[in-house]
């Protein structure tokens, strides 16, 4: 299998803190890969580096073998790299309909069009309906995002990223803060993502991690600590030690 996303010796320094330390990491094409690690390990920072929200102190990011380290976040999206946020980053005054439409129009390169109406592109309505269905948003399509129940907002968070038609999708704790009763929809949506999309999932729920991921990387103090398949990670005593230590203060 080919390589979808790769980092080479990535470092990020925040003042005296090395939040990302010499991370060389590979996400295979079509991967179901989980990234785990205690709070503050640098998982979100890594996603921010991969998507260009913050620049690395040193090191490189490659997407399908091309160096994208200097590209802006929006340029990376147009090359097929999308992400979700651990803390909702949505458009409060827009509806899910507009939000999804926006993501798709931009992906089609039609975002600059200022004389035709949004949604007049052939096929876009069907595409929105399909994504809405996939993420169980059909019933709230025309409500303002700010009034949606939290669980729906979390679904929209993934749906927007998916609407950009990414080849690589980075999910930063998609079920964070969602009450037990509403988790199922989110987990199902994540499980049903098409194989054509390579997925990196950051998650604390070990049941979900083990059911979803074929490969698992463990990040501790900004550095890659261990990597392997689910079984190898589950039985790695060093990983258990980290997690037991973490569970102590969690």
């Amino acid at each position: 299998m080919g390589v979808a996303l790769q980092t080479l010796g990535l470092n990020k320094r925040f003042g005296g803190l090395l939040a990302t330390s010499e991370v060389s990491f590979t996400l295979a094409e079509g991967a179901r890969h989980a990234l785990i690690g205690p709070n503050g390990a640098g998982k979100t920072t890594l996603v921010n580096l991969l998507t260009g929200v913050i620049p690395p102190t040193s090191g490189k990011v490659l997407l399908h073998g091309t160096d994208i380290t200097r590209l802006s976040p929006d340029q990376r999206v147009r090359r097929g790299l999308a992400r979700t946020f651990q803390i909702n980053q949505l458009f409060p005054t827009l509806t899910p309909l507009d939000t999804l439409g926006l993501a798709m129009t931009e992906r089609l390169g039609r975002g600059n069009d200022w004389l035709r109406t949004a949604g007049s592109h052939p096929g876009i309505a069907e595409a929105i309906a399909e994504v809405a269905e996939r993420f169980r948003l059909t019933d709230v399509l025309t409500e303002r995002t700010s009034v949606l129940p939290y669980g729906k907002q979390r679904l929209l968070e993934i749906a927007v990223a998916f609407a950009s038609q990414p080849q690589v999708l980075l999910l930063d704790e998609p079920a964070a803060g969602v009450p037990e009763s509403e988790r199922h929809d989110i987990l199902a949506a994540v499980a049903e993502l098409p194989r054509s999309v390579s997925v990196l999932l950051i998650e604390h729920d070990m049941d979900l991690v083990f059911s979803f991921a074929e490969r698992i990387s463990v990040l501790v103090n900004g550095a890659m600590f261990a990597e392997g398949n689910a079984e190898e990670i589950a039985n790695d005593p060093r990983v258990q030690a980290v997690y037991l230590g973490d569970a102590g203060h969690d």
Partner: protein
Amino acid sequence: MSNVNVPHLLLSRHRWRWPEIAFWLAAFACLLMPSKHLILNEIAILALFALSLDLILGYAGIVSLGHAAFLGAGAYIAGLFAIHVNGDPLLGLLAAAAACGVLGFITSFLVLRGSDLTRLMITLGVALLLGEIANRAAWLTGGADGLQGITMGRLLGLFEFDLYGRTSFTYSLVVLFVLFLLARRLIHSPFGHSLTAIRDNPLRAAAVGIPVKRRLIAIYTFAAIYAGIAGALLTQTTQFVGLDVLSFQRSADVMLVVIIGGAGYLYGGLIGALGFKFLQDWLSALTPQYWHFWIGLILVALVLIGRDRPRRLLHSVQKYVTNRWQSLTGSKAAGSSTGGA
């Protein structure tokens, strides 16, 4: 089992609704009030200026305390153009639009980043700077005496600018209407939606592939052109330019107008301009010295009630009347699925 019709939803939103049609019919009906043409002309120009501010403030979320920079630049360019190049009003309008486009483009880079406070200070600074340049370059602008000796040619070679403001108001209203139509198109386009997205959440906007900076540059330039045209109309219909076109007062007034009318639904600037002029007339007749006191009080009240208020009020009036109408005629929302073209 939901029967959400996405194509219909997408296409129905930019359709003209009856309050909008009524608004414009009423605006054009004002042409039949010859004794009010002079003040109506002022209102139309202020409305265009406010529409310009609404595009950057209400949609893209860029606050400005110096929007008069573009109004003033347009006013001076139109005046100088009429004196030194050509007295044709439409050519002058184009010249002012082009010059303000360039000015808007260049200054847009200053408002790309930074907090609201930085933007307020920078826009204010640019306007003060231009004001001082206009003041010092008296050989060109007439300085504090104002730019004199402007004589406008006939509009389209046919209509003379008369003392009663008939040609002026017709001209300003038509320009306002045409530019409004264009702005309406723009805000319902993918480009327009992306502005709202940027205002709501720039981080996410970039994460769905929106080139945030380029969009902000584009709308700032676009708004500068609108303000410049408003300035040109002011010059052409009054045949004079004074330093006050670049004053802080102008920038503050237009901000007030947008806040009175409500930002972010296109009609705020127009309704606000009407309300502002009305209040100005009424309050200054009532208490000549204190009119700014009252306007200040109203401003504070409006901000406390919420800037969204006028739009929501209008929305509920529309809903109420539509419901009454449907219950009277017995047509159950049947009309809402037709006429999408």
